């Protein structure tokens, strides 16, 4: 059977991809961040699963107000990096895993999670930046990816609890896949940030730290956060953190924290990363 072996949480700030693509990682501004990535990359070198499920959101790239699903799973053979307004990132094509993706979709829908399904989607920085953080600049990504897109932009977003339960259902689906595969799951986005409006630049390290602590030891506490809690405490864009709950829901009740990194600023964002292994 297939099984979930590890989870990663990471912010997916587009500036990180731009810094790498434009050779700016040696600049003073970026050095501390990329220093913090070193243990992440080292861990990933030694822990390459057969497939990664990457949970992220589209940022008005492929989906917009005309059609925006709550949860969408990508079942294509491969996915192109998207043109988000400045031309596509020059990163490798992202290979899919249609067999496992379809298996998960079927099981989720029979389990009352009414997924949208896409067989043709360009993926934006929400997916490609976490890959760049984990795997640097390879000629090809070392694993196929199952993209799982969550609406975190248009109200009402799914609740923090619903995201956790989706993770639990994904785990169940993965474990009923007959082939012997190891699966990683990544929750991306966040942490606290407010990009728009008069309080642009708000971050909240206390809230973020508590969220990360709970993610390890008391994940249900993070499922009790409301839309209002996020917008007040983590900024309008901080609600992306609900996608980390999908990852956590797919893990064991007890996990081992392998690495944590927190850094302000990346653009207007508090950057956070965590690696968790199942106990």
């Amino acid at each position, binding site marked *: 059977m297939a099984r979930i072996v590890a989870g990663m949480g990471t912010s997916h700030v587009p*500036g990180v991809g731009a810094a790498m693509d434009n050779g700016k990682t040696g600049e003073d501004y970026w050095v501390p961040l990329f220093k913090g990535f070193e243990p992440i990359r080292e861990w990933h070198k030694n822990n390459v699963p057969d497939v990664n499920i990457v949970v992220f959101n589209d*940022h*008005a*790239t492929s989906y*917009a*107000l*005309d059609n925006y699903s709550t949860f969408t799973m990508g079942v294509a053979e491969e996915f192109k990096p*998207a*043109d*988000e*307004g*400045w*031309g596509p990132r020059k990163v490798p094509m992202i290979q899919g895993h249609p067999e496992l993706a379809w298996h998960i979709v079927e099981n989720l829908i029979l389990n009352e999670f009414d997924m949208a399904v896409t067989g043709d989607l360009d993926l934006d920085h929400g997916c490609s930046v976490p890959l760049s953080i984990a795997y640097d600049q390879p000629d090809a990504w070392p694993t196929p990816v199952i993209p799982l897109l969550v609406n975190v*932009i*248009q*109200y*009402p977003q799914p609740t923090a609890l619903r995201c956790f339960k989706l993770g639990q259902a994904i785990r169940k689906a993965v474990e009923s896949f007959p082939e012997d595969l190891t699966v990683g799951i990544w929750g991306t986005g966040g942490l*606290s940030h*407010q*990009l*728009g*409006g*008069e*309080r*642009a*630049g*708000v*971050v*909240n*390290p*206390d*809230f973020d730290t508590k969220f990360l602590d709970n993610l390890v030891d008391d994940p249900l506490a993070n499922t009790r956060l409301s*839309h*209002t809690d996020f*917008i*007040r*405490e983590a900024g*309008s*864009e901080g609600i992306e953190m609900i996608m980390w709950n999908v990852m956590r829901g797919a893990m064991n009740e007890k996990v081992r924290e392998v690495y944590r990194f927190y850094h*302000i*600023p990346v*653009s*207007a964002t*508090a950057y956070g990363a965590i690696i968790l292994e199942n106990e």
Partner: protein
Amino acid sequence: MMIFPEPMFWMGAITGGAYRRGFHLNMFCMSLNKAECREEFAADEAAYLQKFKMTDEQRQAVLDRNYLEMLKLGANVYYAFKVISHDRKPPQVMYGQMAMPPLSFEEFQEMMLNGGRSIDGNRSVKEQENG
């Protein structure tokens, strides 16, 4: 009754109200993902904006690159991002311009390098008014 009333604490959140008010404005922004649309917009901004069923106020806010006004008129920041990207400027220019009081790119960067804007006093409109 709307569960998420307007105004939410902070503009730019796509509640049902902002969705309806900002639909065409946001869809214009979204169109700039396509290279051919970017070229058409660059060639004659005002004419391109006429292709979308936006209000004149919304069109003017785009022409003026008045991002705070765009948000007030229903734009969301991820959509507005397409316009600042089109101008080949870093997003901090837009964030700083929207901030109150407004900040230059350098001032915004400095605020973030110093740990960002504190959440204290900024959790809600009420908390902000109470200083």
